[in-house]
């Protein structure tokens, strides 16, 4: 019977460490050598190897990174418990769900030494008010990208997707994402998001049905769709748009006057993380401008850390996709809709795609 003893030993050690941590010394001093491992669960192609390497060398911790391909996959895996992961990187809507379900450890990054580096506008966010559970990783916007050689008019309007001009008819890719498509449609009509008003939703449904013949595809692989010239307009994320522009320089990312969505991926620690202390060290490390800049240089999105721009590539700091031009509306962060609204959305979506 080795296990109970081991378990007990572990909890004892944990208690001691958290006692130390509670006094604040554990995290403040960089001299703490938490030799051991850290298991990170993140989107694929989204974790800078350079940033991980530096963390490993600095703290003598071996880091393992594992990938997921969708929020649903990640959520399904970690809600069963004992996934073995310490750090996860959920999107803003998902993190709200995870906090409500009690899946995250309340590690209080707001008490950590580097918390002062976080841009104040990312502290009191709806998904983690005051940041008791998470810190920003990367953030961006969801709008659309147009080839300005094909369409020469003003691109900053959702009409290009829902009331397509002649040049763009049949040359449009929409995201294969219920919430992104429906919310964009609601913005175009000027109706509230997470809408349970049946008259307005019917209006939306009619709009989508009318627009659908102008869409060629509904697919997530937007970079490929744009660079292969399968389409000339694609709904999608700003970082992807930037990468597509490298291959097709006439592409331009739109900031529609009717509004567009914002999103943020956040670093959080799972409840029952086997390497809790290392996870906290990682969180504190990720709030340094250098680490945040390395993450951004790799993933091509903005981070929420002040002073990181000094270490970011000049290309990122000036590109139209990352820096929102003055005069554009602020990105809207839409909370997850409740089940009744989701059912309504699903009905619209299924009938649109039947």
């Amino acid at each position, binding site marked *: 019977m080795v296990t109970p003893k081991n378990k007990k030993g572990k909890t004892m050690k944990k208690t001691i460490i958290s006692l130390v941590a509670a006094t604040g010394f554990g995290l403040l001093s960089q001299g703490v050598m938490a030799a051991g491992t850290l298991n990170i669960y993140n989107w694929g192609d989204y974790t800078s190897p350079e940033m991980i390497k530096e963390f490993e060398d600095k703290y003598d911790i071996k880091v393992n990174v594992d990938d997921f391909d969708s929020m*649903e996959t990640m*959520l399904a895996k970690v809600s069963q418990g004992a996934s073995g992961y310490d750090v996860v990187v959920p999107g803003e809507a998902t993190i709200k769900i995870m906090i409500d379900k009690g899946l995250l450890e309340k590690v209080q990054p707001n008490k950590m030494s580097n918390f002062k580096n976080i841009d104040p506008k990312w502290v009191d966010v709806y998904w983690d008010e005051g940041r008791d559970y998470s810190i920003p990783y990367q953030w961006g916007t969801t709008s659309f990208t147009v080839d300005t050689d094909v369409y020469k008019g003003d691109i900053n309007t959702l009409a290009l997707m829902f009331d397509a001009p002649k040049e763009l008819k049949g040359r449009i890719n929409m995201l*294969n*994402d219920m919430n992104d498509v429906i919310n964009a449609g609601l913005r175009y009509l000027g109706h509230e998001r997470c809408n349970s008003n*049946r008259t307005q939703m019917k209006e939306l449904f009619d709009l989508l049905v009318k627009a*659908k013949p102008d869409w060629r595809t509904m697919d997530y692989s937007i970079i490929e769709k744009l660079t292969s010239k399968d389409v000339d307009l694609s709904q999608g994320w700003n970082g992807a748009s930037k990468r597509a522009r490298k291959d097709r320089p006439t592409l331009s990312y739109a900031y529609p006057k009717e509004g567009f969505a914002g999103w943020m991926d956040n670093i959080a620690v799972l409840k029952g993380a086997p390497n809790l202390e290392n996870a906290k060290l990682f969180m504190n490390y990720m709030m340094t401008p250098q680490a945040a800049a390395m993450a951004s240089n790799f993933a091509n999105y903005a981070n929420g850390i002040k002073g990181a721009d000094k270490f970011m590539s000049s290309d990122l700091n000036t590109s139209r996709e990352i820096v929102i031009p003055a005069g554009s509306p602020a990105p809207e962060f839409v909370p997850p809709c409740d089940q009744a609204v989701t059912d309504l959305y699903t*009905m619209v979506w*299924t009938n649109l795609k*039947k």
Partner: protein
Amino acid sequence: MTDLTVNNQTLSSSVQTQEQRQQKVRRLLLAPSLITILIIGVLPLSVVLVYSFLEPGAFGGVKWNFSTNAYVQLFFEADIFDGSLSFTTAYLEIFWRSISLAVMATLGCVLVGFPTAYFIATQPPERRNIFLFLITIPFWTNLLIRTYAMLLILRDEGVINIGLQNIGIIDQAIPLLYTEFAVSLGLIYSFLPFMVLPIYSSMEKFDFRLLEAGFDLYANRLKVLWRIIIPIAKPGIAAGCILVFIPSLGAYITPEVLGGGKSMMIGNLIYSQFGAARNWPFGAAIALILMAVVLISLMVYMRRTGDKGGLSHG
């Protein structure tokens, strides 16, 4: 007399115990496979069955309340206008599209697979193995990659369109990709080996002198094909049809990549219920109904082939 009875009894009881023991051993030896089937087959299916009768939980998962809503939802939906329940054809249309595409893929596979298998079966034995080997080559690569290869061939700037433009047959790209044609072509390409192999194995042992006999009896080529070759190959064709139809019906990647994602198939519908729609019970219910469709078509097939046992030929 008494002695005899006693003897008889001991004899029969010893035979019985021996039989019992044998049965015990047999059961014990069968146990591992039975338990495996139970764990990897019956158990997950029972979970699906149970989940289909529960209520959807908030943000995924299930609530442990009994409900038949998932099955009602398949045929009735709350109207967008007033919320009253009315008959819906949305899911039936999705089922219908999936079934018709699967039928097209199956027919396409028969048309291409039958001559291929016949050709291989008529080759000298040592060459047959090379051809069979060639048939299996696509299986060495992941399905997704093979589907993407089709995408590269069919797209506006793909091999076919650029090729035709270069020869001067067309001036503008023909939109081949993101159509039902592309999806059927992709399905045929993906599942063709499942058709060729069973047809080949049913024709492999065929004595081709029977064809000469047929010709000697004044049958023309069509008659020989219809009266001799096809009846011989029939169990293989039937097995191949099942092997192609079933995976085509539940296909997910091919319609998504080659169809452009604008229209749902059953596979996509089920996936979305466990994803964005957050309605696990409904997803479970559709999965079970899909299984029922497959089982019914299998049963129809079994009854048709009767006790000739078509599958064992395949």
